[in-house]
């Protein structure tokens, strides 16, 4: 149909160097991407051909047969032609069957993982992604090894979200009450974004998670360090990190109001609740607010926070409390026994 199509088929093999963005598509960075792109460009060139054909004929007819004097009759012509009508139904029919098949093949590649895939559980919740690795470590970033099949098992604990990595051409809804699966094999190391593409409310547009594809060996090193941050950091430092990853979507640490109250100067303050009661913000209050947030709602804020029960470990809760103390000038944090501060890997 179009001369460029065979060339595109040929280039759809395994890329050897990191590819670049094209005008229409982001750089393909997973093994399934070239299949998607081949289907995309096949449909694209068929569409371009028919669009140009339709518009060119339309413009030609309008010029050629334009009415010069009002009342001029038509030159005339047949008003039906069965052979022609069957032909122009059959050609598109054949083309769309090819399109269907290409789409089907590409889709099957993306939804059927190989048996040895690395499983990572993905939980969507307003408005963060939580990735749980085989060793139980939960993180807000998706880290994967290069050239390894990774299977994502998605669910949600509030509304529907959808995980989308543009360069991998994968997207799957995270639906509460069921598990959806998708897999990919990243073709080269790099940093990408996982976006939420199912509308999920106020902060939908900030529900982005970094995706890091590691060089061989890098993933294991990262996972070991990420799984136990207390080895190298103080409570307050870990708390600051946790705030950045888990809390900053709704709680600022600089006094600025956000979806929820700020952490700045919170510790020791008397907090007013919507039911008219009040309490001093101490360790137990903060802990309760994290694991059971609906019990005491701070006046002036909506009751939207999900529980973090089971998602944050006890020492992580302590770390957040210590960070809030530090932000409130009430730090009593004791450095952990093994202080060997080192920059993050």
């Amino acid at each position, binding site marked *: 149909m179009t001369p460029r199509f065979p060339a595109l088929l040929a280039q759809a093999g395994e890329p050897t160097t990191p590819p670049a963005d094209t005008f229409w598509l*982001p750089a393909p960075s997973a093994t399934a991407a070239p299949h*998607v792109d081949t*289907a*995309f460009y096949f*449909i*694209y060139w*068929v569409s371009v051909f*028919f*669009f140009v054909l*339709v*518009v060119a004929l*339309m413009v030609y*007819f*309008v010029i050629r*047969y*334009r*009415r010069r004097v*009002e009342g001029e*009759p*038509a*030159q005339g*012509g047949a*008003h*039906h032609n069965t052979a022609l*009508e069957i032909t122009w139904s059959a050609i598109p*029919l054949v083309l*769309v069957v090819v*399109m*269907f098949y*290409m*789409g*089907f*093949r*590409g*889709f099957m*590649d993306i939804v059927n993982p190989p048996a040895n895939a690395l499983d990572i559980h993905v939980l969507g919740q307003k408005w963060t992604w939580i990735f749980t690795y085989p060793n139980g470590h939960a993180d807000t970033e998706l880290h994967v090894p290069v050239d390894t099949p990774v299977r994502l098992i998605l669910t949600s604990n*509030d*509304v529907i979200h*959808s995980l*989308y990595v*543009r360069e991998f051409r994968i*997207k*799957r*809804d995270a639906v*509460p*009450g*069921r598990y*959806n699966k998708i897999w990919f094999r990243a073709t080269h190391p790099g940093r990408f*974004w996982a*976006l*939420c*593409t199912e*509308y999920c*409310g*106020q*902060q*939908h*547009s*900030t529900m*982005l998670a970094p995706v890091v594809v590691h060089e061989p060996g890098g993933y294991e090193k990262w996972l070991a360090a990420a799984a136990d941050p207390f080895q190298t950091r103080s409570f307050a430092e870990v708390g600051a990190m946790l705030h950045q990853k888990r809390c900053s979507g709704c709680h600022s640490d600089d006094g600025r109001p956000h979806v929820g109250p700020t952490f700045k100067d919170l510790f020791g303050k008397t907090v007013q609740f919507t039911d008219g009661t009040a309490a001093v913000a101490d360790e137990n209050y903060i802990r309760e607010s994290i694991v059971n947030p609906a019990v005491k709602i701070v006046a002036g804020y909506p009751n939207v926070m999900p529980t973090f029960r089971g998602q944050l470990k006890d020492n992580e809760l302590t770390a957040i409390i210590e960070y809030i103390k530090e932000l409130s000038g009430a730090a009593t944090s004791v450095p952990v026994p093994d202080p060997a501060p080192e920059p993050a890997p």
Partner: protein
Amino acid sequence: MTTLNPPPPAAVDYLNHRSGLRGWLLTLDHKRIGVMYLASILGAFLLGGIFGLLIRTELFKSTKVFIEADTYNQFFTLHGVIMTFLVIIPGIPGALGNFVLPIMLGAKDLAFPRLNLASYYLWVAGALLAVLAIVMGSLDTGWTLYAPYSTTTGMGGVVPVLLGAFLLGFSSIFTGLNFIVTIHKMRPPGMTWFRLPLFLWALYATSVIQILATPVLGITLLLLIAERSLGFGIFDPNLGGDPVLYQHFFWFYSHPAVYIMILPAMGIVSEIISALSRKHIFGYHFIAFSSIAIALFGFFVWGHHMFVSGQSTLLTTIFSLLTYGVSIPSAVKVFNWLATLRGGSISLRTPMLYALSFIFIFAIGGLTGLFLGAMATNMHLHDTYFVVAHFHYVMMGSTLVAMIGGIHYWWPKMFGRLYSELWSTIAWALVFIGFNVTFFPQFVMGSRGMPRRYWSYVNLEEYTWMHQLSTIGSYVMAVGFVITAIYLVHSIVAGRRAPANPWGAATLEWRCASPPPPHNFDEPPTVGDPYDFRDLRYDPARAGYVPAAGS
């Protein structure tokens, strides 16, 4: 064809035969109801359009321009709800169909004039509930109202909007029922099925969808209300429900609803293209049957909205295949219109400009649907701006452009006045250019991965220039619409009087005076081929077409 009586001098017409507000609000005349629909729907279009412009303004920068995320989410929801339920679905059948259908058919009115008036007031009630929803705390669910978001969001406008959409559904069912019965039972002698103008075939097919699909939407909305206010567990998994079930129910209506929108638009285009090229429509039977085929097959493709939802791969495969099947009749209609133009006497007056724009825009809207029908590319493009661009090319660029073309085509008949063709051509150019500048960049940003319904695009700044182009285009389009409103209103006050048949069309409505008398026809008209223009000749004295003398 036998000799036709020249139209009688229009001393009494439907506009002046009865004055006063009562004469309008309680009228049973399909023409007056059509005019009331037209005015109301254009009012809703203004409101929905303002929300659209506000959304585009906010997206001019990646960070906040002037509204917060919550406000933005409400605005795009209201834009979608108003445009879909109040403008595009009822637009062509309610306004133009009501006015034109009985006259085109050769009947004095619709079969059930009171039901017709009831359908209008249900529309009004639905519209008022939508406005009430804005007052009662608004809603931020998106027009699709996906559960469990819609059953758990804290905003107070959800239930009023659901009730409003429920009433609008009944309005739609009443109109569909009325049209079907009228076309079956009120054809004058000689008006056989294959002498029906294609606009009527299109309205017939549309009506079939309206009465078969809309009840499903009504039930779904009631279930949503029951879950939200009474805690019934239908869709929310915390109550034992299934959120994907909601999507099945919703799209079982809302995909056929796309054909409720586009089929009448295609009917208008068939009328305009044939009349303004003075040539018999090419492939009449195919176009007529394809409307019915699209209406029926349109019921079996809803699952293509759910390829990434977790629906089974087998279902996804079947829906993809059926989706491609339904694309063929639409494609062939485009070829038929082109073949109609060939050898015609093509006039570029305003209705034709809109009809030709329809072909241009619908070609893009239809072809980009092919990308979304393929399973693999769908996964990449789903819920990105590519989808937003695709359905705006179909719903706005095709349906609304055809509706505006239809308004320009039948305006002289409706009000007996001619508008300024200079200004209408200028406005057309602004709308056409503005539309493409607004929505074409959205294809590019969508295929590059920009998700829809994003208030900000921090960390995604590479899309900024496309968003800005899109915003500029939307303002250009808005200027075009404002000019359109001005010259149309001006024409009613000060336009030249329209002849009975300004375009030389052969369908029956052009046999009546402009504007038509209250009961359309004093005696049943003689009916011929609606696309045979040979017996019409141009009369410069009347600036219109008259039956050829002595034929």
